[in-house]
């Protein structure tokens, strides 16, 4: 039953985002594992479309913020304005008060604004003028970065990158998918017509189910070996943090559930590993291994 719903979600998203089944599956995994997603790719490959489609399919409220260098935290979080009728300040919620927020080109904003967003991501609440406002549940951030033109940008530091469960790339569609895209309907309109496949309650149930996927001691051993390898092999400047380890486990669980299994296999870990740890590890020898995570998979034996 669960499996059917997931299949339906994937099918709906894949009908809009063409030829990117693996990426879509990773993005869904990220949301099911309650993680925030960072998409790093060129403009126009469908980052916004992917975020929007996911929101609609999962029945989540959606907001998009285009980050610019003159943006202030209040532009995201909201602002208190004096109400002359009530004779008091009232808080006007910013765009962050939504279930799925697309932070477009997050590296264009100043570190101050970035940190306002990232703090909200971590705490899942916003504190303004002594008042604490809870963010809606579930709450996701899908942030995008444009890697090509870094002039005038503020690249996210490692500590901030660590808050994103996954970083994925979308990439160009293949010839076949592109042909369908070019000859087919307008994607924007299609999203408008798209219906939610499941309810929010159902979605939260799925998240819980993903969390309950069984990870055997043998699998925990494997994850530990991966963590140990990242710390001791000397290939990376810093090893993976415990948070990265937890994220890896929950992502692997969600992936296993999407694949319709109630136990996590080493393959699941391997499938999510590049997206989960890719942005957290800096290879020591940068020009040697661009595929450092794949090398890492090959080097760690499955216990």
């Amino acid at each position, binding site marked *: 039953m669960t499996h059917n719903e997931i299949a339906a979600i994937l099918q709906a998203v894949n009908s809009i985002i063409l030829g990117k089944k693996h990426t879509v599956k990773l993005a869904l995994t990220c949301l099911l594992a309650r993680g925030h997603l960072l998409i790093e790719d060129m403009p126009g490959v469908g980052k916004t479309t992917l975020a929007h489609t996911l929101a609609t399919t999962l029945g989540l409220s959606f907001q998009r913020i285009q980050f610019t260098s003159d943006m202030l935290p209040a532009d995201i979080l909201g602002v208190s304005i004096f109400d002359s009728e009530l004779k008091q300040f009232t808080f006007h919620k910013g765009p962050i008060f939504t279930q799925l927020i697309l932070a477009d080109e997050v590296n264009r904003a100043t570190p101050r604004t970035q940190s306002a967003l990232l703090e909200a991501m971590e705490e899942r609440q916003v504190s303004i003028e002594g008042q604490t406002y809870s963010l809606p549940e579930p709450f996701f951030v899908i942030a995008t970065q444009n890697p090509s033109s870094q002039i005038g940008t503020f690249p996210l530091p490692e500590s901030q990158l660590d808050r994103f469960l996954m970083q994925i790339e979308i990439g160009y569609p293949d010839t076949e998918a592109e042909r369908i895209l070019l000859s087919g309907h307008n994607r924007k309109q299609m999203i408008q017509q798209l219906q939610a496949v499941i309810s929010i309650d159902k979605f939260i149930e799925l998240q819980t189910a993903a969390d309950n996927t069984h*990870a055997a001691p043998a699998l925990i051993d494997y994850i530990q070996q991966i963590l140990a390898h990242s*710390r001791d092999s000397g290939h990376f400047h810093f090893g993976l943090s415990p948070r990265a380890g937890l994220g890896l486990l929950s992502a692997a669980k969600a992936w296993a559930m999407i694949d319709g299994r109630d136990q996590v296999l080493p*393959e699941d870990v391997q499938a999510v590993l590049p997206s989960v740890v890719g942005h957290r590890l800096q290879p020591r020898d940068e020009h040697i291994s661009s595929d450092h995570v794949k090398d890492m998979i090959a080097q760690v*034996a499955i216990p």
Partner: protein
Amino acid sequence: MLGLSLGASPHFSYQPLWVMLIFMTMIGWRCMNLWRNWPLPSKQHRSLTWLQLGIAAIATLLLVRSYGNFIGRDAGVALLTVMLGLKVIEIRSHRDYYLSCFLGYFLVVTNFFYSQTIPTASLMFVVVIIMTTCLISLNSPIQSLDSRSRLKLANQMLLQAIPLMLVLFVFFPRIEGPLWGLPQDAYGAKTGIDDSMTLGNISQLILSDEIAFRVKFDGDIPNQSVLYWRGPVLWETDGTTWTELTRKKQNSATPNISNTHSSYQYSTMLEPHNNHWLFALDFPTTLPITLKTHLTQDGQLRADAPVRQRVQYQLNSHTQFQFNVGSDVHLADALQLPADKHQRTKQLAQQWRNHTQQPSELVQLALDHFSQQNFFYTLSPPQLAGDSIDGFLFESRRGFCEHYAASFTVLMRAAGVPARIVTGYLGGEINPVDGVMLIRQRDAHAWTEIWIEGDGWLRVDPTAAVSKERIEHGINTIMPFSMRSPMFISHSRQLFDIWQQLSNNWDALNTGWDQWILAYGPKLQKEFLSKLGMPAPNWQSMVILLTLSITTLLLIISLFLFYQYKRHDPIVQLYQRFCNKLARLGIVREPSEGPLDFAIRACKQLPTYQHQIMLISHQYTQLRYSLEPSVSLVEYRREIRQFNPKQE
């Protein structure tokens, strides 16, 4: 760097100053480069090359001048030290660091050519730890491993090496002969009794705390006053120097010992002194079994080969005996005196001789002369110019045992009584910690033997006439504290006692070290192995045995580790069997390949067995990774047993 300096430091005392100077300059330069960023000669400008060539050339020249050639221990070590210094300033790549490290280990080994004491060994152990730490740092580029944990790892590794070290120590074949022999110059001058005696050369020994030999008595310990340790016997004199009988005069007859009483059994551990003689309690009545020795006519126990390593031998001695009562072939030699010397002494002897002809009375006259005529026993006798015997007897009257022995012998010979000088040691100190008697260089002594018809050779110690304490209580009672202990504690009796206690413990430790570690040579090894049931193996078979036993040991350890790693999990073992079956067909699972990925790959290559492969892989993942597996171990085992893929 520290390791290299420490490793080289003992060489200061053995190497010429310039060698160490070059070495330390290079090390210092490099250190300043690392800390303060001082410039090093750069390779681009060729200055490094020229500098190195220059120093190397100078060093080579100096070496040839100092040692004559490059062969030999000292020259070799000096060359190694200088070149290592040069290597240090040109360290650039990883490889250079490795090379320096390994050369450092080699430097550690060279230290043992010179000294094998506990302090050296401990210092070198520290150096080895530092070197190993360096190697660990070189091999792990991770900064997260701080220097303390690297040090810890080095210690762990060395501790793990200890069992292997013990096995090698016990079983590595010890070979007598040139293979392990050090070059000739390894046996430099040693302090100790010489085969000749000039007035003044024994009193030089008095300041030496060095141990000459150790004795362990089985049973009773003789009185201090009979602890005469017999060494070289001196007959011939040219007026100043006394020497042994020349070789051609010596005959092979053994001395005739009779009427023996008071027997003592003891074993001696003699420090190497590069000479033939062995010291024995006067007078040895058995020959050692463990050494090839002979007893000369004048009662010296001599080894056939010079004592170049610490030797141990068992002896039986009698402190009461009669020696060559009948006659002695060398009596004429015992009356020889240079014709034109010692005129005043000869006159005195002639006066006595006119008085009496009885040897025993003559002896008494001479001893009375010493005790009544204001003679003093002193550790620092004045320099004697001219005829030293006359000078001592009639002018200075201050002397050490050798003065008394020599002048007494001259007096006796001049009076017509056959006499000779015996050198050796007198006394010894029992270490209360382990009951071993230590005889040090400062216990060196010289006394006289005269021959009397009917009594044979009799020991007369003229020193006793002057200083009874020296004979009865040993040299320590004569020596002030200040000569026996470090300066700062010499004024306090209590501190001195503590110091004494400490040095006793240290001596006991050294005795153990010498007895159990350094003395473990071919003989002890043979004995030990025959106790283990391997009688008299030759070294070839021992090498084979050693190789075999170490291989077995390592094999057992690696198997043990391997099994621990696999943890005997039947699910994993069975899966391993499944993988092995596929591997026989050339489908080998990568260690990092997940079971499902592997199954899919295997199915592509073996479509016929697709069903079985998928089933087993599914069962495996269920059993290994599921909370509630949907299959039982029995089914899984049966499936794997029935799985027998064949190449299509």
